[in-house]
């Protein structure tokens, strides 16, 4: 596939209300709120690394849900030059993986089994055992294979699910990996390690990576394109270099200080006067 080819394109896409999961007791208010999210229009090129940034409740997760192609939607979504509505969930799962923020398991499955479920949609999978091992290694979950899920800590659970997602697209090229703040609950060291293993994984296979991130610096450092979302609308869609200082300030409604570093990307840090005095 050509590097500049579009892998995913959204045209005025928004979620249909009926398909929303009822996670809130106040369904009416949820509906009213969802109404204002979207529609979104984006073209994503093959092999791009895109970070989605925005304050909480801005519609980042909704955008990622729309991209996953699993929910009923208005507008048009094309994945690999095909309307996503025409693709079966099985067909989609070969090329698109999704890592959510929270996970629940009903029964106490073993890590190995959970990782193997990444490849559940394949009828014939001769390489399965090797792929489980390799993807566990890539997600630094190799030592967790024998453990059962409920005995794992939060960070270990995140690694097991990352390995599951790795396994899903392990032998594919030009796929799409969607990630929803998977590293928020982890300690900083592990965050960096896992992010770099995700980046290498995608680079090795020419997978496109779309990630919702909390950390502005991680986004600027490792991703080439930023999509900024506020109040359910894309307010900016720009390259991460040079660092979009003004736009990010506007996005989070706070002041950021820009530190230029020779030979490296710019550093943006929150500059609250109160904070600096305390130091």
């Amino acid at each position, binding site marked *: 596939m050509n590097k500049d080819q579009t892998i995913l394109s959204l045209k005025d896409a928004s979620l249909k209300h009926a398909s929303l999961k009822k996670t809130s007791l106040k369904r009416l208010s949820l509906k009213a709120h969802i109404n204002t999210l979207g529609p979104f229009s984006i073209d994503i090129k093959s092999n791009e690394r895109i970070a989605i940034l925005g304050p909480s409740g801005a519609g980042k997760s909704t955008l990622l849900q729309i991209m996953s192609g*699993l929910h009923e939607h208005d507008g048009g979504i094309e994945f690999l030059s095909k309307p996503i509505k025409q693709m079966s969930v099985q067909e989609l799962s070969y090329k*698109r993986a999704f890592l959510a923020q929270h996970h629940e398991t*009903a029964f106490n499955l073993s890590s190995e089994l959970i990782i193997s479920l990444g490849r*559940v949609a394949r009828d014939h999978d001769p390489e*399965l055992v090797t792929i489980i091992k390799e993807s566990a290694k890539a997600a630094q979950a190799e030592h967790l294979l024998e453990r059962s899920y409920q005995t794992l800590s939060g960070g270990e659970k995140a690694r097991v699910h990352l390995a599951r997602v790795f396994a899903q697209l392990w032998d594919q090229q030009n796929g799409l990996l969607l990630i929803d703040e998977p590293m928020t609950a982890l300690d900083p060291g592990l965050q960096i390690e896992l992010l770099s293993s995700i980046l290498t994984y995608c680079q090795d296979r020419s997978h496109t990576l779309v990630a919702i991130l909390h950390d502005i610096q991680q986004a600027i450092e490792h991703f080439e394109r930023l999509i900024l979302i506020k109040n359910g609308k894309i307010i900016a869609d720009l390259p991460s270099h040079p660092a979009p200082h003004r736009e990010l300030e506007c996005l989070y409604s706070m002041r950021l200080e820009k530190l230029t570093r020779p030979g490296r990307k710019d550093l943006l840090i929150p500059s609250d006067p109160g904070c600096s005095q305390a130091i």
Partner: protein
Amino acid sequence: MHQSAPLHGHSKNMSNQTMLLYAIALIVLITMALVAVILGPVEINYLNTLSAHDALMESYILWQVRLPRILFAIVIGASLGLAGALTQGLFRNPLADPGLLGVSSGAAAAAAGAIVFSGAWDWIMPELRVWILPCAAFCGALLVCFLLDRLARWLSPGSVMGLLLTGIAINALVAAFIGLSSYLANDEQLRNLSFWTMGSLAGANWMIVSLMMIVLLGAFIYTQRLTVQINALSLGESVASQLGINLKQLRQRIIVMVAFLSACAVAWCGMIGFISLIAPHIARVIVGPDHRQVLPLSMLFGGLLLLIADTLARTVAIPAEIPVGIFTALLGAPFFLSLLAKQRKTMI
């Protein structure tokens, strides 16, 4: 979809262990069956029946009464165990059970309706009349299953409480219908009806046993293809669909299977509770939560449990026979309470 269940994440050494477990469970089951053959109001000596020809009565009892009954208990128990394991997988909930959720009573209510009202349908051929009951039971079970699936997801996804309360409501509704049927029934129909509410394996004969064996074999082969997908379902519905599982299709397949198995059991033996709750639990304690093992083992344990309960029911009060449903309830209700106690954190 899944032509064969591939070895999803299993080392060889693990499957050897599981094989051993299956072998042990099978041996226990066969031993129990052989013991159960001897027990009963009439004493039977194996050697006698095999060698001597004058032991006609013993041989008749062995071949026409005891053996079909014992096989029937195993087969019905196995289908209940399988139905239970499937229900728990579908609702992702270890407390789900076709009996507690009202699937069995739905089948029983439809069967009761059929007993009472089919008298008026003279135009149905007598040969076809035998099938009215199982068909009605299947329709009833299927209806309740679909209703449950809708209601439980609409009420509170993933909540134990919501599901069990829905089950209570459906059970109450169905009980009203059974009550109405027995109110309208004449004496003979009433006697037939009381059979449903208690559950008994006394109706065993070779025809039904072989039919149930075929049904069970078919169900087993069919569900083997779903086990890996049920595993994926326990990661949550959204994750399962991200992994390429067609949720709607999977749910429908499981529901039809559960309804079919519960209806078969209800149509021929009435309501036998709690086997479908306990068997998958024992299986899960022994082999862990992987549905590829839980399903077959639930069948083995379901068969074993019902065999024990039925043998007790036959022999405790010789020459009288206590309906086996009473025994399974005596066994199952305390077990259910202990499960509730374990789950109390997730209840709220």
